[in-house]
């Protein structure tokens, strides 16, 4: 039986499946539910400086080859998030699972402030979301668009907290490897690759974009080859752990992500296709696949497709 355990930034995960940010991460009880369903680690929904209601409906649409969403970073604000995370930490400690907090903001300084507040809840890891595609009008081009702006945010957060930090990158850049190198140089301990790809679904008969925000982020099956390519490019550019995220829907997809060089595997949209239990199913399928293919550990397969 393959050993699924996985070392991530000093923490031991029972398996490499990480609930991705923005999926069911809006409460301590939902984070615990994801762990009970089989995730090795869970990421809370991204939180910003102040409460946001998000965009009006429609905020999601399944367009046949994936999901498009523009939730609009709904969140209770950093102060309230501290309670949510502290409670989550409590519920997760009961079962030995790893908690990843996620933050976003409008300026590097604000990133540092939010990070410092959120860090008081002592999540195990802090994810820095510089890549949400849904709020660009409000915050200008996302920070993930250039190495320089990505590094500025990373530095600011690095100084503000003593937690390990993972910086979450965007796929809509010409060279993600360069951006990964810049944020690692600036102090990132890990990379999460990738956030959703900006897209638009138009309903022909309505003659309108479906989402109220018009533009949203593509996740699910359509994102997988983009994510695999980004993970491979990040793997070649930097040595830090990667949480490979995008389009993982079964154990074989998870294997591909690990073969591309991921340390752990983020899972989001699979929860729509298969319910919350998809998290545990993916881990179980990965184990079965490794047994069949003769891999005893994750290390044995990690990055193998890049040889």
């Amino acid at each position, binding site marked *: 039986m393959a050993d699924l355990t996985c070392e991530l930034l000093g923490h031991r995960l029972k398996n490499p499946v990480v609930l991705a940010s*923005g999926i069911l991460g809006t409460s301590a009880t939902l984070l615990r539910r994801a762990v009970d369903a089989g995730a090795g680690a869970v990421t809370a*929904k991204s939180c910003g400086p102040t409460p946001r209601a998000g965009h009006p409906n429609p905020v999601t649409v399944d*367009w046949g080859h994936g999901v498009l969403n523009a939730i609009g970073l709904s969140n209770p604000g950093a102060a309230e998030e501290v309670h949510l995370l502290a409670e989550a930490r409590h519920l997760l400690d009961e079962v030995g699972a790893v908690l990843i907090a996620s933050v976003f903001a409008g300026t590097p300084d604000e990133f540092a402030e939010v990070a410092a507040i959120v860090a008081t809840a002592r999540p195990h890891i802090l994810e820095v979301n510089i890549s949400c595609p849904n709020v660009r009008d409000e915050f200008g081009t996302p920070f993930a668009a250039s190495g320089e702006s990505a590094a500025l945010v990373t530095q600011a957060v690095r100084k503000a907290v003593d937690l390990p930090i993972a910086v979450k990158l965007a796929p809509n850049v010409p060279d993600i490897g360069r951006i990964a190198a810049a944020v690692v140089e600036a102090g990132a301990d890990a990379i999460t690759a990738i956030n959703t790809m900006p897209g638009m679904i138009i*309903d022909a*008969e309505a003659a309108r974009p479906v989402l109220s925000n018009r533009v949203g982020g593509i996740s699910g099956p359509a994102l997988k080859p983009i994510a695999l390519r980004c993970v491979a490019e990040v793997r070649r550019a930097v040595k830090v752990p990667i949480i490979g995220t995008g389009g993982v829907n079964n154990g074989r997809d998870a294997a591909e992500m690990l073969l591309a060089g991921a340390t752990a595997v983020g899972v989001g949209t699979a929860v729509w296709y298969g319910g919350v239990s998809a998290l545990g199913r993916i881990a179980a399928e990965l184990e079965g696949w490794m047994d069949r293919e003769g891999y005893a550990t994750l290390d044995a397969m990690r990055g193998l497709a890049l040889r």
Partner: protein
Amino acid sequence: MHRALRLTEVRVENYRTRSFVFEDGLACQPGQFVMAWLPGVGEKPFSIAASNPLTLMVVAVGPVSEAFHQLQVGQRVWVRGPLGQGFRLKGRRALLAGGGYGVAPLLFLAQQARQQGMDVDVCIGARTAADVLLTEAFERLGVGVHVTTEDGSLGQTGLVTAATGKLIETLRPDALYACGPVRMLEALEKQARQAGVDCQLSWEAHMRCGMGLCGSCEMPASEGRLPGWLACLDGPVWRSDES
């Protein structure tokens, strides 16, 4: 993806409630819902009032529901679904209880129950006679109808629980099925538990994705519901026999 469905009929049910009948059917269970999108206006969840042809019943209370009331036969509504978990009929004898638009999914349920030859009674609660909905439709199905109004302008005076309390005793239903305001459901749940009758309750929550992703429809844990219960994914119908 949404399907754009044309309206073939708009029925006035009361002063602020209309039923919208579509050109097509939708394979679904009573208690499931659809997300209905009016482009340029918004998207909201609506219980399925009949599956073939698909029928929704809408109370005009705000932007989306009022825009619904502007629709004419021939116009289209964009629908995705069916979503969520519906009711599951059990036994031979069903007691239904609804308030407000909650009677819509119960009508669909009653239809299915009668088709299976079950005995069905429904308690319809409302503030006043003008708010009472669908009595004739239930009667046409051969369902026993019991109306309560808060002001006594129709049927028994009081809340719906006044009627259900008695009927649980006299009919000994195999289960109680309900949809309506939170307060009503809470009272019914207690009543059913005390009487030792199974119940299936359809909860309303703030829904955004409707896909079990965004977390906005999480319900507070209760005696019955587990922590992290999502109305769009695990519900809207909660069954006392599933916990």
